[in-house]
């Protein structure tokens, strides 16, 4: 079964390499990407009762150049697979009309999918690392298509950093536990030292853009093609969290960390990093003018929430984190696709230049509106249930530093969500000539919005999906029915909220129906009596420098942000390499002296 999927994916990838027209390539990749989704779906019934074991029957071993790779599905890998692979068909449907010419997006996207499929199925570290490298390579080429020097360099540097961290981690693990197979390592987990876990977690954290390691995200998200960025921020960052989930919970890394520091300080630190990245991500997000950079920082902020859930580690927090990961995958890809659709029609990225696009592109606007409601965690969308679980976990564990920062980051999400809605879609109608996005694009976006609606009323289904994942990873689950989530401190009944809203909507609807109303164009606006056309053109779009007052208050503190740290690092490395260049003087005598010095160092080290 797995061989068939891998074969289909690779054949499709090589086929689309040589196809010029974007349309055919899109159709092929759409069919190919549906294959893993179907496979994942029919594994769903296996995990109702299956205990956590690596040797589930549909595993596959293949060997390349004498090294045998073991692939088999596990319950938490299945949950992440459902999340990541249900993004792909809508994205390819979207890119059917987004790319006229096949500029290499489809083949490398398919390589990327095979790599992700491989990572999620890997049952030993060698396969994991092999597919991790394949993923890094194919996503690097997809970033390379954007031809932006800064994005390429930063993405290259950080994927190399993450690969090195993971490789050293694997080497340490191999040296301590003698084997690379996951199930064997889990058996003798006590011999695993802390440094291996920290390195691996840091390596995975790079891919999911946690605060100190996030510098690549704003550049890459704002320069690469929209469909790829939608998958990158929606799907690939979740693969990073899959790695962290495996290291901290499946292989009980968290317990080892606790025993080593005999207190929860290490995982608490991860939660603090998550909270800070959520807070600073939101602050940076609502001051951005470029729409995609704004979405990039908001992505960092939302991913910070998941890190907080991983840090706290209780069953409540983990359920919240996985739910948030699921929501984030969907509403972030819808937002990036909406940005792509707007750019496809208007060709502009800056919020201050866009304006009133929603009047002409109502369906894109509706999809973006619902995604933003999910992002801002408004109770009528499934976004709230996830964040509610995280807040409950943080309060019941009495974390007094993280909870206020998380809540403020949640409220801060309203600021940049209004910025997107007003700056791009509403306000003055400056784009009268554009048409609605083509049908495949809208279909793709609405397909992605669908799960947010399903899990709005019935979060219970989502918790059932996670049930086997959480139990297998030894985290225990929380009591819930289809629409009520009960925790130690309180309960949240989504049906009550939805029915309450319907009932309460009646008086409001009555007032709306009370009188007929006249549609008025935005030109007939109150400008203190001034007619709109009188001075030729009065710009009524107040979206430029929108949050200037707070910017002046906050910016001084954020001046020395992470990115300036990396630029300083970059310059420092430049100077060091420049100094070291002086060693190769080309004189043979210097080389002999170097060899002698080196020889003495070795001898000294041996004797000492």
């Amino acid at each position: 079964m797995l061989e068939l999927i891998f074969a289909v994916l690779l054949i499709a990838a090589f086929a689309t390499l040589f196809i010029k027209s974007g349309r055919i390539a899109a159709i092929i990749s759409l069919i190919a990407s549906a294959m893993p989704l179907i496979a994942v779906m029919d594994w769903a019934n296996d995990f109702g009762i299956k205990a956590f074991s690596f040797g589930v029957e549909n595993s596959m071993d293949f060997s390349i150049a004498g090294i045998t790779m073991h692939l088999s599905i596990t319950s938490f890998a299945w949950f992440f697979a459902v999340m990541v692979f249900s993004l792909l068909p809508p994205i390819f449907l979207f890119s059917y009309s987004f790319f006229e010419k096949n500029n290499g997006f489809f083949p490398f996207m398919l390589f990327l999918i095979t790599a992700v499929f491989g990572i999620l199925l890997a049952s030993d570290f060698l396969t994991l690392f092999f597919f991790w490298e394949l993923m890094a390579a194919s996503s690097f080429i997809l970033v390379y298509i954007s031809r932006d020097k800064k994005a390429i360099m930063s993405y290259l540097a950080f994927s190399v950093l993450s690969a090195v961290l993971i490789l050293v981690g694997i080497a340490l693990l191999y040296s301590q536990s003698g084997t690379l197979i996951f199930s064997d390592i889990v058996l003798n987990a006590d011999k695993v030292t802390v440094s291996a876990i920290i390195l691996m977690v840091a390596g995975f954290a790079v891919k999911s853009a946690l605060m100190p390691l996030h510098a690549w995200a704003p550049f890459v998200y704002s320069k690469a093609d929209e469909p790829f960025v939608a998958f990158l921020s929606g799907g690939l960052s979740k693969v990073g969290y899959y790695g962290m989930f495996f290291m901290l919970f499946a292989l009980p890394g968290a317990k080892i960390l606790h025993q080593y520091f005999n207190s929860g300080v290490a995982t608490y630190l991860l939660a603090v990093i998550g909270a800070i990245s959520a807070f600073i991500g939101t602050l940076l997000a609502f001051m951005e003018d470029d729409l995609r950079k704004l979405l990039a920082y908001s992505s960092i902020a939302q991913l910070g929430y998941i890190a907080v859930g991983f840090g706290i580690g209780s069953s409540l927090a983990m359920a919240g984190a996985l739910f948030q990961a699921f929501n984030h995958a969907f509403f972030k890809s819808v937002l990036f696709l909406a940005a792509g659709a707007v750019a496809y029609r208007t060709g502009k990225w800056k919020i201050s230049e866009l304006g009133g696009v929603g009047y002409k592109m109502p369906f894109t606007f509706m999809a973006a509106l619902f995604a933003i409601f999910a992002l801002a965690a408004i109770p009528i969308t499934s976004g709230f249930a996830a964040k509610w679980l995280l807040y409950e976990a943080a309060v019941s564990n009495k974390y007094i530093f993280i909870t206020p920062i998380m809540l403020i980051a949640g409220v801060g999400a309203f600021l940049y969500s209004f910025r997107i809605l007003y700056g791009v879609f509403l306000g003055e109608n400056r784009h009268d000539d554009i048409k609605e996005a083509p049908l495949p694009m809208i279909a793709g976006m609405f397909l992605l919005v669908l799960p947010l609606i399903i899990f709005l009323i019935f979060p219970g289904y989502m918790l059932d999906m996670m049930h086997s994942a959480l139990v297998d990873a030894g985290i225990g689950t929380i009591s819930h029915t289809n629409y009520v989530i009960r925790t130690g401190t309180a309960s949240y009944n989504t049906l009550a909220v939805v029915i309450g809203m319907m009932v309460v909507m009646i008086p409001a609807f009555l007032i709306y129906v009370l009188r007929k109303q006249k549609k008025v164009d935005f030109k007939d606006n109150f400008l203190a009596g001034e007619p709109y056309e009188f001075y030729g053109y009065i710009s009524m779009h107040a979206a430029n420098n929108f949050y200037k007052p707070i910017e002046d208050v906050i910016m001084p503190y954020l001046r020395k942000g992470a990115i300036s740290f990396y630029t300083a690092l970059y310059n420092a490395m430049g100077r060091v390499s420049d100094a070291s260049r002086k060693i190769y003087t080309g004189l043979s005598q210097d080389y002999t002296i170097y060899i002698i010095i080196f020889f003495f160092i070795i001898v000294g080290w041996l004797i000492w």
Partner: protein
Amino acid sequence: MVVEKIAVIALYTTIAMFVGILFMGVGRKIVARVHNRVGPPVYQGFIDIAKLLTKKTNISHGWIYDLALLFSMTGIMLTILFLPIGGVKLLSMEGDAFLVLYLLAIPALGFALGAGASGNPNAAIGVMRALVMMLSYELPFVITLIALMIYYDTSSIAQIVEMQHAKWAIMIPPFVLAAAVADMALQGMLMEAPFDIPTAPHEIASGPMAEFGGKHLGALMIYKAGTIVAYTTLFVDLFLGGGVVMHDGSVLAYLANFAVWFILIFLVFTLSLLINTSFPRFRIEQAFKFYWKYEALLAFISLIWVYLMVIS
């Protein structure tokens, strides 16, 4: 049993909305008396809303502009559903403080959408100020909320109200400081004078409401009335025991609790009005710095004080 529960809920929500509209008239009367004026009749709120709803012509800037009308009224009534009023737990066993916090955001965002769709630059600047105000007063309020949750070890408002039967939260030393901070945050939520920055009539032509008229403005007036009741009830529930005096289920207990609740929210509203009449309007950066520097600091002190009390 369910029908009786729904009847009680419907009764209490409509009463709360009427109390809100009454308070608007009463509020203007109190402010007028402070100005040594006669001031409008107490039922002025009802007349204003009746006049607005019976306007002959109404304008609309598109379906999103009408969304504001639906969202703002629905959101505020939904919030009142989830707040225990006078000891009567309407739906508040189903949701908790975080839900109420985010339910209060639905009308604000719906209102902002409507203002944005009206295309008026004043409206956009007004909404920017409203969202910045929300961000600024949310920090101290949230810290005091967490202090309460940690102390009572629950996050559901209904349980907090129950645990305050013996002793109101405000009587416990750290919560006096927390109540003061929450009251200043309440000043920001009700958009009373020092913080009526978003709807400043002189600077930005009444901000987000610049283009609202007729029935849309009528709905927003009802929303404003709802916010008065919702925010003051939230404050009373968290710090003043939700007005619960008698605990047996008799009709007398219902009336007594309701009366105490009414008096308490009236006092809280009058306090905020008196602050309203004696302060000019802040600039948005001053308000932001005020909340994030001084208020957040005080709130954090009370939070740590409670944390130490809880651990020991």
